Every structure is written in C-alpha cells, then in structure tokens.
C-alpha cells in the first residue's frame, strides 16, 4: 500500500484533465443537467433510504440531475469496486459517482488516490457550514483536504428501555456494573461493524485517564499498554452480554428489534435522533429514551466523496452541495424523517432558515444539543482497524 500511495502521489496532478472546475459553479450546474449520479450508500436503514429518495426528487426538480441510490451492505464494497475499476483501467466512467463515507474507508481511498478533488470547500453551501464548531475538516483525525464534503453529524448515544431500565448510566465502569447485575440485557454490534468498533473506542476513551494518546497514529510500542484496560474490561463484560457473547447483532439498527422484543434493555446508536424515528415507525416501544455519558461520547461527521473515475462529477457536486443546503439539512434533522445532526452554522444562515430548525420537534427520545454535551474526538483510524482485528482474535473466534 505504501508504494502505491507514493506512486499515486507522484502522478496525481496529471489526472483531472477534463474534470469540471468546482470553483466555476455555473459551469458545474450546466454540465450537471441531465447527468445520472449513482450514489453508493449503506442501504440498511429504511429511513435513510427514504431521505435519499427525497434528495433525488429535489435535485431532479432543481438541477435536472437523476440520483440513483445504490444500496450497500458495507461501504467497503464501493471502495473495492473503485479499486477494481482502477486495476482494469476504467478511468473515465466508473460505476460509482458518489459514496457515503467516513473513517477508514475514506483514509484508504485518499491514500490510494481514488478520489476526485479537492472540491468540497469550493461548493457554494460550504459558506454556511460550521467549520469552527464541528469536525468537518478532519475525518477520524485524517484531514479531508476538500476530498469529501460533510452532510450530517453523528454522536454516540445509549438507547435504553425505561420500562426495564429506568436510570441512566454515567460511565463505562457503571455500564459494566449494570451488566453484571442484569446479565444478557446488553449487546453491541459485532466488530468490524462500524458501530461495534465505535463501542470499543468509546470504552477506551471513557476508561483511559488521558485519551489524547488516541489522536496520534497507533504504534507497536504503545498499543498493548494503551488497550490493556479495554481487554480487561471486555473480559468481564462478555459473559454478561446478550447470548453470553456467543453471538452479536450484525448492525446498530438490528438491535432495535431486540429492544422491541424485550431481549435487550440497553444498546448504543450513532444517531441521536434514530430512537425517536424508530418509535414513530413502530420499531421501538415509546418507553425508549437515550442518554450520553458524563464525560461525553464520541462524535463524527458523515461525508460524501466522489471517485476519481466518476463520469458524472458535476452532477455529484450538485448533489453534495444540495446536501449542505439549509433545506436538506433541516429535513435530515427532523426526527420524523431522519434525526441526523446538522453540519451548518446557525449564525451563517438566514433568520427564516434558522426558524425552520428551531421549529423542529426533536422527538421524545432525542436529547437537545445541550444535553448531548461534550463531543469526544474520534481516535486516529489506525486504532479502529487494530482494535477490530484484535477483538476478532479475542472474541470473534472464541466459541
């Protein structure tokens, strides 16, 4: 991979010959009209799918761009596809025009020079993005450098059924105590699932006296020492998990039915509004609420990126720009629709636009921005990869 990255860095400036210039927005819009954009995005959440369909109808209306949602089970599939196309010399009109991405997948694509750009910071709506207050220019500590544009903020929240578990929990240590007193009532998605790996990072961030070591790339020297408390923690937690840790839910949303069935009392989610949305869709009982830890929880941004070989880059930029519009952002934040956090700076948009955000009913299980408290930074992606691998060796093959 290293050699490839160096080679890629050397030849990078040569590409992008006939690519649209993001700074010339009128030209971009003109070129975009009539284009079809294949947006590869995780398709496991029906509410997200509905939102993407709405985005498609809006960009068709305003810009004449046709948006097709390609539903992925795993974002890595899209990364693999672009890699395969590059190997096969398909450099002009690949199958993928846009990917919902972040973290390790973005780092991998950026390193292998599979991305178009920089484009994000030239988009007109970048002007209203909250660059100062939200982590929209780094992705798991990796600088985005304009190769991806943000469209939603996410933060870890704990989802609990108050009918069975009335009280919040303030720390990971308390969670362990609770699980020991209530065996079989908590689980997390099996790493390397995105949310499952996030749970591991969340434990680590919460139990380490000083988590700042996680913001730098992991080294062979510090890995064992830093993560030792995590494995000790999990050794105690695992026998008290749902199914005694012999099986895990596949994804975060797969845990909602388990709460609805009363199999679980507690789970985690990366979307503060997801529980309220699920209640509205009959997927969760209305006794479900959410909480965050006393020290705060991990948060990050969701991005979209454009592969270097997309044949509809202008169309993809139009969609990326629309996603950052106050209209799309307000709809995404509506818990009845999606319940995702906005990336916009409330001071930068007009009073009218702000009123739409202020008018949103957050939903009974959604915390207010103030209640969400401190956002803990994501560790460097190298930690996530290593934690997930190590977890698989320790718990993923144990039974």
């Amino acid at each position, binding site marked *: *991979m*290293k*050699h*490839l990255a160096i080679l890629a860095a050397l030849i990078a400036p040569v590409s992008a010959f006939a690519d649209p210039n993001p700074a010339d927005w009128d030209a971009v819009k003109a070129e975009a009209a009539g284009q079809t954009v*294949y947006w590869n995005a995780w*398709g*496991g*959440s*029906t509410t997200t*799918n*509905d939102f993407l369909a709405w985005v498609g109808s809006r960009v068709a209306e305003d810009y004449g761009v046709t948006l*097709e949602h*390609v*539903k*992925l*089970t*795993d974002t*890595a*599939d899209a*990364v*693999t*596809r672009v*890699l*395969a196309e*590059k190997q*096969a*010399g*398909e450099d002009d009109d*690949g*199958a*993928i025009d846009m990917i919902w991405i972040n973290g*390790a*997948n973005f780092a991998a694509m950026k390193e292998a020079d599979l991305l178009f750009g920089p484009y994000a910071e030239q988009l007109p709506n970048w002007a209203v993005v909250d660059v100062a207050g939200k982590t929209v220019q780094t992705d798991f500590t990796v600088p985005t450098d304009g190769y991806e544009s943000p469209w939603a903020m996410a933060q870890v929240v704990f989802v609990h059924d108050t009918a069975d578990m009335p009280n919040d929990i303030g720390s990971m240590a308390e969670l362990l105590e609770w699980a020991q007193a209530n065996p*079989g009532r908590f689980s997390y998605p*099996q790493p390397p699932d995105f949310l499952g790996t996030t749970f591991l990072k969340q434990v680590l961030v919460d139990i380490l006296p000083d988590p700042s070591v996680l913001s730098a790339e992991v080294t062979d020297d510090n890995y064992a020492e830093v993560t030792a408390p995590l494995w000790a923690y999990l050794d105690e937690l695992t026998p008290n998990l749902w*199914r*005694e840790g*012999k*099986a895990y839910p*596949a*994804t975060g*949303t*797969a*845990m*909602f*039915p*388990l709460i*609805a*069935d*009363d*199999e679980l009392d507690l789970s985690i989610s990366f979307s503060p509004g997801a529980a309220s949305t699920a209640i509205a*869709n*009959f*997927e969760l*009982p209305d006794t479900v609420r959410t909480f965050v830890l006393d020290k705060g929880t991990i948060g990050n941004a969701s991005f979209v990126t454009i592969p270097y070989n997309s044949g509809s880059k202008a169309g993809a930029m139009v969609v990326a720009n629309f996603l950052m519009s106050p209209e799309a952002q307000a709809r995404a934040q509506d818990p009845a629709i999606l319940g995702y956090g906005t990336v916009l700076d409330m001071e930068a948009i007009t009073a009218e636009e702000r009123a739409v955000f202020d008018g949103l009913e957050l939903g009974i299980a959604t915390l207010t921005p103030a209640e969400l408290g401190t956002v803990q930074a994501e560790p460097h992606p190298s930690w996530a990869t290593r934690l997930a691998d190590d977890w*698989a*060796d320790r718990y*993923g*093959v144990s*039974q």
Partner: protein
Amino acid sequence: MKTRRLLPILPVLTLLAMLGPVVAGLYGTALPAFGHLPAAGLTGPSLNPFFELFDWAGLPRAVMLSLGVGVGATVIALTIVMLLTAGWSGTRAFRFLECLLSPLLSVPHAAAAFGLAFLITPSGWISRALSPAVTGWDRPPDLLIVQDPLGLTMMAGLVIKEVPFLLLITLAALGQADTTRSMAVAQALGYGRVTGWLKTVFPRVYAQIRLAVYVVLAYSMSVVDVAVILGPNTPPSLSVYIVRLMSDPDLAMRLQGAAAALLQLGLVIGALIIWRIGEVVVAALGLRWIMAGHRGKIDPVVGAFALLASGACAFAVVVGIVVLGVWSFAGFWSFPDFLPDQFTLRNWMRFGPNTLAALGETALIAGCVTLVALVLTIGCLEAEYRHGLTLSQRGMWLLYLPLLVPQTAFLPGLQTLMLNIGADVGRVPVMLAHLVFVLPYVFLSLADPFRAWDARMGTIANALGARPDRVLWAVRLPMLLRPILTAMAVGLSVSVGQYLATLLIGGGRVATLTTEAVALASGGDRRAIGVYGLMQTGAALVPFTLALIVPAIVWRNRKGLRHG
C-alpha cells in the same frame, strides 16, 4: 436446415458461456492466492497468503462448519426425500405435499431463512404462541438458537429448502423409473412400502438425481446468504469469511481471501470425493440388505417419521412466509403478543414502489437468462442425440463446475474480465453472469429426463416420415413438457436468488429484489424484510405453479404422460 448447421455449435457455445467466466475467474483468484497482485504492489509466487490464512484462529471451526453443515444438510434432506417418496408416493398425503411443492420451492433461500429465524428465535412466533401461558416467559429467554456455534439452525435452514428441491428433481425422475410396476412386483412378494421402494426403485432414481445431490452438497457447503442470516459469527463459516476478506478495503486482504477461496474449492472437491466413496459403500451394504430379503417390519414407523419430518420442513417454510407477511403489515408488536398491536398498510406504502421497480428488473433478467439457457440446453441435448456429440463423464463435471466452484472464488476475477472486454456494468453483463449459474441448473434439471426419453418414439416418428427437426418439435419436446417447464422454473428461481453475481457484476447499478432485500437485511428492519421477502417469493412462485399446472391441463387426456 438452419438448425442442422447451428446445432453442432451449440454445445461449444454452452461450454464457453459457462466455463469461460469460471476459468478466467479462477485464474484471477489463483494468482493472488499465491501472492501475485500487482495492483497492490505485490508480486509472487509466494505461499504467504496461505500462511496468513492458517494463522487465523477461527479457521478450524470455519472449515468444520462448512463441512459439517454441508454434509449434514445434504444427508438429512436426501434421507427425508427418499423415505417420503418411498413411503407415501401415490397417496393422498403425498399429493398434498406435492401441491405445496411449488410455493415451498419458490421461496428464495434468504426469505425462507428469515422466516425460520422469525419463527424459532426466543422472541419468535412459536415462543410468542406459547408465552406466557405454557412457558411462563413474560420476556424472551436468553437462548442461543439462531447463530448457534454448531450451525444447527443454519443446517435446518438449508434442509427446509433442499427437501423441496430434491423432491422436485425426484418427481421429475420418477416418471422414467418404472415405479408402478416395480412396486407392484415388490409388494406382491410381501415387501413393505418403504423397503420395497428402497430395494427396487431407489437405485434407479438415485442414478438420475445424483448430480442434483452433488449440487446440493456443494451449495450447502459454500452458501453465503443463509449463513449470514442463521449461521454463527464467532467465527463465521468459511464462505462468509471469504466474502468479508474479498470486500476489505485493504487490497492485501484479497490475497488471503483468494487463498481461502482455493481452500473452499478444495473442501468441496474433498467432500464430493468422500460422498462418492459413501455411495459405493452404501451400494455394497444395500446389496447385502437386498440379498437378506427383509420385508421391512418397521416400515410404518420409518414412513411416519419421513412424513413428520417433511411436514415440519413444509410447516417451517409456509408459516415462515406467513410470519413475514404478518411483519410486513405490522404496527408495533411486542413480546409476548401473538399478533401486532395494530395492522397497517404503511410498510407497504413505504417499500411497495421500490419493490415494483426491482421486480421488473428481476423478471426481465430472469426471463432472458432462462430462455437463453433453455435454448442452449435443448440444443446441446439434441446435438448429443443426433450427432453423438456426447459429453464424457469427465465432460459432465466441467458442466457443473460453476455450481461446484464457490461463487466467491471466481466472481471478483469475473468482474475484472468483464471490465477488460469493455462489457462494463449494466443489465447485459449481469445476465451473462447469471447464465453461468442458471445454465447448469437448467441442464441438470432437463438432461436426465431428456436422455431417458424413449428413443423408440423417435424411430416410430422417423418411420412415419418425420425429419429430425419435426421429431424434436412435434414429439420429443411436447412429451417432455413437464421437465422442460420444471427446468425453466428452476432457472428462473436461481436467477431471482442471485446476490453476489448481481451485486459485483452489476456494480450495484442493477437492483433486483434479492440485492435490495439483502441490503435491508443487515439493518434488521423486519417490516421491510417482510415486504421484500414476500415479493421475492411471489417472483418465483408463478413459474413453479405453471410448471405443475400446465402439464396437468395439457395432458389431462394422456394418462401415460403423467408421471408415476
């Protein structure tokens, strides 16, 4: 006249359509397995990918799962089908199960697996029906049923789908096995139903369904979707692990994935060899059993067991689909309520429009692919009949290669091949990829009945002045209407159920019911799964129903053309 010139080319075309992609795909797999992947900056040869694979702590269990589940599911399904046919064929109970066959077969593996899961999990429908009155549970017990480490639930999920498949193939073969007269003689000699059938009819029937059994074995060992839904994950089966490695963003993991794919290939080959040895042993033991002349005292017990077991399989699939249906209309539905708090059309309003678009795509692809497969298959078989272009036994194995090679082993290589020849993503390449899998199934379904056709009919027609083409169109094909329609139905359902081929070759741009459903599956939204599972089932239900109904109507006044 045109046919005469075209006919000899068809077998070559058929082999090319099936083997070209497989060979190219395997080539594309073998290189990285031995450390050669220039795109990742790695050049071989090296055995490191295998060393890394053998370093994986989960490998022994993953391998045992693949073997155990594959062999177990095949043995159980075959036993049930043979004993059921032996004990009950021709009875009212058998005819009832026969009526259920089309719906059972048409249910895609993924939908059946979901249905089974919705039934037997601790919070499933069976538990709800018995709680709290019988069980005393007011919340689901923490029991590991689905995803159990031994893969028993996964095995059950395969058995309930393979029993109808083997039964259908058996029914198609029965017509050629002279069952009625054999059984009359055996029973006149005082043999019980089951024993008499096993001793006289089974050897002939098994010879006809043998390749179908091999396919079931290979499929069960390398299945992905059922394993993801019902199988364990700590560790998963080898196939699931391969899919994971192959889709890892780190290119280097593909080397290990390719090595694992070759291992899976070896496992399947090994299991087939063991199975073949088992056939010889069973034949030898069977001969002694026949010579011993036992008339079968426990036949009624064995027969009852077979009926019960197949009834349970049918129950699991049918009620599984019913519970999918209930979920598709469900409002909030908590444990231990037997039914949801309210029924709503909301889920169908939400997902319905998308399923219709996917249904159109699915039907178009499946229809075209099956027609091409049917034309090629009949062309091959007719060429064999007229010109003696017979595939040797070894050649037959080539024919089934696409079914015996794990999809995960050659599909990524196939993808690269298609990109190289400029056949980029889209519907047509997906159809070509489907053809690789559909052709063997169609051939497998049709070849034995086609060959077993009484050639004296052709001789008579010739004597009456009919040319070979007329014999084919006017005598042979009409007589083979039932197996032809069966083969088409199998072809359609295979195409409907294709996941990996559609996703990889279609670049995600071709959305069929199956790709949409599996994408939703990872999210665990049971209402959406219910809607898509029902639509998938419907897409495959119609052809299977026609395959049973049409011959019955067309041949209502031709007793000899009805089976059995």
